[in-house]
């Protein structure tokens, strides 16, 4: 089983991926922090309609890689292409404007605001006519309606009432709100950082289901997770980081969890 790639940036050999055009592509990213090398020439491809998991030990460069892709860090070297066009993100807002939405580990929701207000936080829609243009009144009814439709489209059945304050929701439901917000605004790529880390079994399953729904709607997902069963459950391909490099890109079909852990820890070389 030698389906993996080296760090030189060749296309991964897993599945039919080579024939498609990646929606997001990173080539030979380098990022150093003083003497510490965070990323040592990492390449990554994300194809339309897939879930790409990124796994790796602590310090393997997962977070740095994601931060470079989402504008939270600026790589020292290397290029990032979105839809085959080079992009240069200087701030997270740049990446968001380009269509890369990130759901952060610490759940960026406002507990006291209701579900609909959270979905539209920072991009509220105003009423038509003079009420909206002069008095800047937000279109609460319209936003609630859209929020309901969006949640329904994502298959989030547990959130019936969009007027409930987020603090009254369970952890899984909050995560669903955060994911729905990321997916709701015509985004091209959704990045999820450890979305199941703080959740119980039932809630984790709901979030995994949500990830599948995103993929089925054609939105590609990058999933960072420590949880191997979750990764193997939901991912189409798995990017393994090790010591600042891409050790391999595998699929759940071609490798077992044990294989993946072996590659992650360096016990097995590809």
């Amino acid at each position, binding site marked *: 089983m030698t389906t993996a790639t080296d760090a030189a940036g060749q296309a991964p050999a897993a599945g039919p991926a080579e024939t498609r055009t990646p929606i997001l592509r990173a080539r030979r990213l380098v990022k150093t922090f003083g003497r510490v090398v965070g990323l040592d020439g990492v390449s990554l491809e994300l194809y339309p309609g897939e879930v790409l998991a990124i796994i790796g030990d602590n310090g393997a460069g997962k977070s740095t890689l994601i931060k470079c892709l989402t504008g939270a860090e600026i790589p020292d070297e290397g290029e990032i292409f979105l839809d085959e066009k080079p992009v240069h993100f200087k701030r*997270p*807002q740049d990446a*968001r404007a380009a269509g890369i939405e990130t759901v*952060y580990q*610490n*759940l*960026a*929701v*406002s*507990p*006291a*605001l209701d579900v609909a*207000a959270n979905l539209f*936080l*920072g*991009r*509220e829609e*105003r009423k038509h006519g003079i009420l909206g243009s002069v*008095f*800047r*009144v*937000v279109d*609460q009814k319209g936003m609630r309606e859209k929020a309901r439709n969006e949640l329904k489209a994502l*298959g*989030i*059945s*547990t959130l019936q009432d969009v007027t409930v*304050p987020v*603090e*009254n929701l369970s952890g899984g439901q909050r995560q669903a709100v955060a994911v729905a*917000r990321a997916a709701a605004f015509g985004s091209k790529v959704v990045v999820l950082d450890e979305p199941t880390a703080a959740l*119980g*079994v*039932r809630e984790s*399953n*709901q979030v995994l*289901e949500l990830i*599948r*729904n995103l993929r089925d709607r054609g939105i590609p997902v990058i999933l960072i997770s420590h949880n191997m069963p979750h990764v193997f459950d939901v991912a189409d391909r798995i990017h393994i980081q090790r010591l600042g490099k891409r050790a391999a890109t595998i699929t759940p079909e071609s490798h077992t969890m044990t294989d993946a852990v072996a590659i992650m820890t360096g016990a097995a070389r590809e």
Partner: protein
Amino acid sequence: MTQQTLEPPTSALDLAEEFLDRTTPLSRVRNTLHRYPAVSPAIVLVLAVIVFGLLNDRFLNPANLSLITQQVAVVGTLAVAQTLIILTAGIDLSVGAVMVLSSMVMAQTSVQLGIPGVLALLLGLIVGLAAGAFNGFLVTRLKLPPFIVTLGTLSIFVALTLLYSGGATIRGAEMPELLTSMGATFNIGGVNFTVGVLTMLLLYVVVALILAKTAWGRHVYAVGDDPEAARLAGISVNRVLMSVYLAAGAILALGAWIQIGRTNAASPNAGAELNLDSITAVVIGGTSLFGGRGTVWGTLLGALIVGVFRNGLSLAGLDVLWQTFAVGVLIIVAVSVDQWIRKVRK
């Protein structure tokens, strides 16, 4: 793919939790209070009015009710500014000092320089805005805690007021009529209201609408709730904070105008107690000192509760110190209730 088929059986612990959370009457009360934080002060106000009305016949007569509204007008106005700042998880110890400084500028420029009332009011407004901008600058740029910032600017504004005015009170008779116009009265259904009281109520309506109906209002709550989450949602936290301190400054200038009308004078020694009284009104009104939760209507109720307690206790013939004592008890009870309400479902 449906959601339900994937769910493993609910654990006994989950069931127990849900049972406790959803079905005990006490937790249902708590959830309601949590959702509508103005409910508890409303209950307290109604009870207080009934009790004091039963204790003393004079309490409910129109002249006395009019007096209570007038006593509440200035602190009620300042408390609107205080609410905005506390909603962002800040606090402003300098509201009374800014209000007095603004009122002295209004009075003294009109009397000494002989400028028209409109211009004097405008200068007072500028002073309020400048004070707000200064507080806001220190909070957003130097990243100092609002408590420390306004503790410092409290002393600065008090000193500036005394230096500027020379400690002298200016009588309303010397000022242009416009400056004292907030004290004019009119009659609705046998109760006298001042223009100042009406202005305060209008201010509540306007600010309540802005908080509930505009994106800015939502952002104020979001910033107070969790500034990091607000930032990640694309909100410019510093800009929201700065706008809140500026809005507060403008409201304090309005308070200065109402204060001149209420006392028919501008005194550099007025308003010292208003710094804390405004916080009292906000806290009793159910707004959380941790930010992100509360309404200006709660604050109005809080200001009225304090006014009713002071007035009712004094009509009952109790020593003025017992009024202060009662306000202290009210604060502690209000914050305890708030803590209890906040324990809803983690």
